[in-house]
């Protein structure tokens, strides 16, 4: 009888230790065992995933390149005050000359020129041409000699730019990622109208991903429902059909859409054959937003169907039958009984499709034209073509931030516990 056990009486295990202590020890051991079992996976993910991505994202603020390649000038520039409106002293020019000569020899001069060129066009050519000419400058006064080599050195803006970008960390990339710029005077302005791209692209990426999530839901729900209520043999066959696209290359699927949707493509030819459209007014279904939405819906459909199917399979058929037997119209029974039970599956499918869609770049690249591309296409461009890794990383950080914020919002509204993958 549990009531007869007094609270002041402690229980002991067979070897004399108190029960509390023994229990705690056993729990600790279980936790340790579980941790050790998961440890290899954690370490693997940490080394191959978290560290490299962290390193890449760190480049969005890293700016050691200027201070490393121009060490003497940046150190002296720290003491120079541009507000007097005068160029730095002869000592600073001498230091710059040494830095330029050394970096030209080490072949690092074009890197620093390119980095500063991202902030102010023209710096690249300034550094490149200076690198070639400084070999001939051997005696003071260095100020006149350098300005003669390239008049950019006689402009105070050049020096203000170098001073502004000497610190080891910079916020310049993040400003550029939202179409803003911090002038050397310190104020933050929006970039000119004809150079604004990123904010509009972020909005477009989120909007199109949302549309794609909705279309995959509308198309995927009936498929999953059909698979859930049919007998196992037929539903297994349908499951294979849903998974079949995964066995073909992504590029093949995307190219197939190009063949179908293009102006002279299969669908347009069919519409002309049945007389629905004029041959002059063929609808443009590709190289625009429509093409992106259609192709991505096709590619991401299995990601919506599978979680929905898994959840629907666990809903007992007797619920709906009970509702109907109690007098509900079948449609009402579906909405009030069946549908709420599928919400966890919808949640899982929706978040899966949305997060994948936001980061996709191959399909929008091929079928998006100019109005259907995503922010990820710009990130890829900066990483592989313009080599502005800082800006690419800043865009990536912002994208990651947006997804995290949306995920937390989703948690608040729908609840993570309300999400089941099976």
């Amino acid at each position, binding site marked *: 009888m549990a009531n007869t056990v007094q609270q002041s009486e402690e229980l002991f295990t067979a070897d004399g230790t108190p029960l509390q202590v023994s229990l705690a020890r056993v729990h600790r051991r279980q936790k340790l065992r579980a941790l050790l079992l998961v440890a290899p996976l954690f370490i693997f993910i940490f080394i191959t995933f978290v560290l490299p991505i962290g390193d890449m994202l760190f480049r969005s603020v890293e700016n050691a390149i200027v201070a490393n390649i121009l060490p003497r000038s940046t150190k002296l520039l720290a003491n120079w005050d541009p507000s007097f409106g005068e160029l730095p002293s002869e000592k600073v020019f001498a230091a710059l000359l040494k830095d330029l000569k050394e970096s030209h020899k080490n072949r690092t001069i*074009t890197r620093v020129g*390119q980095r500063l060129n*991202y902030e102010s066009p023209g710096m690249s050519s300034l550094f490149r041409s200076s690198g070639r000419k400084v070999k001939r400058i051997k005696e003071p006064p260095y100020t006149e000699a350098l300005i003669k080599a390239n008049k950019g050195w006689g402009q105070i803006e050049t020096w203000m730019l170098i001073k502004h970008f000497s610190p080891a960390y910079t916020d310049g990339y993040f400003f550029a990622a939202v179409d803003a710029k911090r002038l050397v005077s310190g104020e933050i302005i929006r970039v000119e109208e004809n*150079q604004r791209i990123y904010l509009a692209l972020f909005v477009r990426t989120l909007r199109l991903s949302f549309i794609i999530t909705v279309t995959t839901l509308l198309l995927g729900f009936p498929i999953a429902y059909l698979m859930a209520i049919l007998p196992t043999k037929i539903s297994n066959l349908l499951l294979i059909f849903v998974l079949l696209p995964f066995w073909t290359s992504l590029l093949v699927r995307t190219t197939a859409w190009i063949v179908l949707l293009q102006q002279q493509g299969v669908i347009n030819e069919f519409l002309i054959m049945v007389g629905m459209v004029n041959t002059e007014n063929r609808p443009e279904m590709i190289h625009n937003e429509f093409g992106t939405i259609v192709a991505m819906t096709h590619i991401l459909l299995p990601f919506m169907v599978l979680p929905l199917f898994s959840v629907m399979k666990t809903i007992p058929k007797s619920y709906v039958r009970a509702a109907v037997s109690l007098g509900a119209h079948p449609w009402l029974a579906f909405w009030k009984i069946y549908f709420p039970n599928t919400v966890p599956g919808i949640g899982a499918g929706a978040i899966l499709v949305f997060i994948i869609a936001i980061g996709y770049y191959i399909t929008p690249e091929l079928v998006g034209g100019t109005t259907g591309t995503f922010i990820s296409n710009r990130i890829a461009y900066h990483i592989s073509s313009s080599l502005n890794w800082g800006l690419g990383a800043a865009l990536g950080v912002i994208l990651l931030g947006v997804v995290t914020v949306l995920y937390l919002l989703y948690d608040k509204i729908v609840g993570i516990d309300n999400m089941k993958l099976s």
Partner: protein
Amino acid sequence: MKFNQSTFATVFVSTLLAFSGPAMAKTDLVVVSWGGAYTASQQNAYHEPYMKMNPDIKIINDDSAPQAVAKLRAMNEVKNVTWDLVDAVASDAMRLCEEGLALPINADKDLAPAPDGTPASKDFGDLIVSECFIPQIVYSTTFGYRTDKVKVKPTSVCDVFDLKKIPGKRSLEKKPINNFEWALLCDGVAPNKIYDVLGAKGGVERALKKLGTIKSSVIWWTKGAQTPQLLADGEVVIGSTYNGRLFSLIEEEKQPVAMLWDWQVFDLDGWIIPKGTKNLKAVKKFVRFATDTKRLADQAKFISYGPARKSSAPLVSKHAKLGIDMKPHMPTDPNNAKTTLLFNYTFWADHQDDFTGRFEAWLAK
């Protein structure tokens, strides 16, 4: 079959022998290039003959040339360069050389002289635009059009901007390079003043305004293979791409397409040896072979790009499979080269990042 000791021993020994491989060690050379018809021409003209002459060398093709600069930068940061030879256009080669990612070459020492004894530096001449660059071919970016879909034959590059004369869609490269030059040319700027106008205030706006007159009819391509496919499908009636791709389309695929050579833009493509390659001696031997007079002329048997050596030009003969004379298809042939532009490396090295940003912003609107 009974698995007694003797059968086991035979199986064991024969497996060992099978896996021991040939007696000599094979060196793998990783050669990076652009893929498609271009890599196929290199495979036929350089790689196969070399591998036949040197059975201990295996040449592996990698199609990452469009991302060469980014990948080489990344490889150098971790000090693990896995490539041995990289095919790069002149502007990429200059960039890599300036950053110390490519090895300098002494043309007279490292490259073969012409058969008549002319040293390599004279045979290549001005085409050695950088001390790390080994020129291979002269190619051009130019236009092709559907002969059956145009009412009037286009004769000038400005017909691309004329929606009345040539109605229908066009395809242009998704880059400001070449498009800006053609736009200014067709807006009335004299050919020798193009870069002055483009570099001055308002130059970019003027070029974008001209491009804006056809913007809604343009499909923008990023890969050389896209325009030939678009032309073959009839999606575009006129489009720009590399002249060798158009040659394949017209002569090999026999599509109803013709070339428009007016104001073609010349560019150079060649090799660079990445710094940190693990097979330097083997690669230098290969490069010496692959860039000699006969080899460069051989590549012209498979694709219509002009060999960079003066001594190779007279050796350009017939296509290896089709048997047609290649000379009229060379971009350097006098009939085709009446009006040409040469890619302005210094201008674009300075302005590429800035102009591309404005171009992309204009595209996105």
